[in-house]
């Protein structure tokens, strides 16, 4: 087929399109997040000792870290759906934030004076249940991001997929945080880190396969 023929074909079948807007995509994700969180709270899934938990430093550490990670990850993913925007800076911020969160968690743990062994503190049975819940709660956001990625034009698909995976994972962990009764920094770093890591890796591995353009 000659290029001239192709150009005629493309121009002759032209239909109006609505210009994509990162702000609109962000609002869609924001609405989804609010609905998921509201449903979670309305279903009575929040921890019963919330008042007491709020007096613990680890509560605010978890809240701030997961909230920021979700915000930066999701914003990075959405912005990178414009082919002229690269996600690298957002990913660097995410890595910096995760590293800082680990340091702060280590600082909180140092004042904790736990008597149990490291293995006992991990509470494998509860941890696996937490892991499963976090991954499940991240799925709505991951699916929404997949739809947006397919509609957008990410020029750095792998990095965009990683940002999407991280954002969705952090959001799933953020919602689960209102349910989770564990405040031990070691438990949180291990299980929340594992949950977020698994979802992020799944996003990084799978999203590029379905978002090729």
């Amino acid at each position, binding site marked *: 087929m000659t290029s001239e023929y*192709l150009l005629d*074909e493309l*121009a002759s079948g032209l*239909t109006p399109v609505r210009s994509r807007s990162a702000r609109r995509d962000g609002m869609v994700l924001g609405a989804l997040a609010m609905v998921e969180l509201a449903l979670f709270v309305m279903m009575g899934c929040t921890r019963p000792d919330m008042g007491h938990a709020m007096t613990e430093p680890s509560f605010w550490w978890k809240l701030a870290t997961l909230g920021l990670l979700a915000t930066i990850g999701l914003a990075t993913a959405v912005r990178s759906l*414009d*082919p002229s925007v690269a996600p690298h800076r957002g990913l660097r911020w995410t890595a910096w934030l995760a590293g800082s969160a680990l340091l702060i968690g280590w600082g909180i743990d140092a004042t904790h004076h736990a008597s149990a062994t490291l293995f006992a503190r991990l509470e494998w049975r509860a941890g696996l249940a937490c892991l499963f819940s976090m991954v499940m709660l991240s799925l709505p956001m991951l699916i929404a991001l997949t739809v947006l990625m397919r509609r957008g034009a990410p020029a750095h698909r792998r990095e965009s997929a990683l940002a999407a995976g991280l954002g969705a994972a952090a959001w799933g962990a953020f919602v689960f945080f209102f349910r989770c009764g564990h405040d031990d920094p070691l438990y949180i770093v291990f299980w929340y880190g594992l949950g977020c890591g698994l979802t992020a890796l799944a996003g990084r591995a799978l999203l590029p396969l379905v978002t090729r353009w």
Partner: protein
Amino acid sequence: MREDEADQWGAWMAAAQGGHGGAYRRLLGELRQWLLRYFARRLPPAQVEDAVQETLIAIHEKRHTYDPARPFRPWLAAVARYKWIDRLRAMGRERTDALPDTIGIEDHESGVTSAVLLRDLIARLKPAQQQAIRLVKLDGYSVEEASARTGQSPSLVKVNIHRGLKQLAAIVGQSPDDE
């Protein structure tokens, strides 16, 4: 690409997003020239035309991702770069075997005759069937690529190939041997 040229292209793309076919046709014509220069500096000559066409199709399919409030040049350059990298990766995956020095080269007469005959036969089909068969069966495009290039849905491409080949078989079957 000059600054005023890029501004004009941005305005044409904004008009194209509103459904203005004339502005879009002019834009595609100028983008084609720009892309030819772009890929000529980055790809082997045999790959340039294909890369240009792929990029034009990508621009068409993703035209809604251009924000008219922003400059057109970075958007275009990012799409072209993406397709260029895509093509480089594909070239890396393609296997090329060196031909032995002793390989025999056959007479091309039968091939040329077949090509001419095939062209005449295909010309008897409906235009949509001709397009689908040429792209998928002769040029080696996938059904999805042929769908994007022709505007037919993937299912319609398959149907047109199936019916076209059936029609070809019928034509060949009815033709006298001396034709």
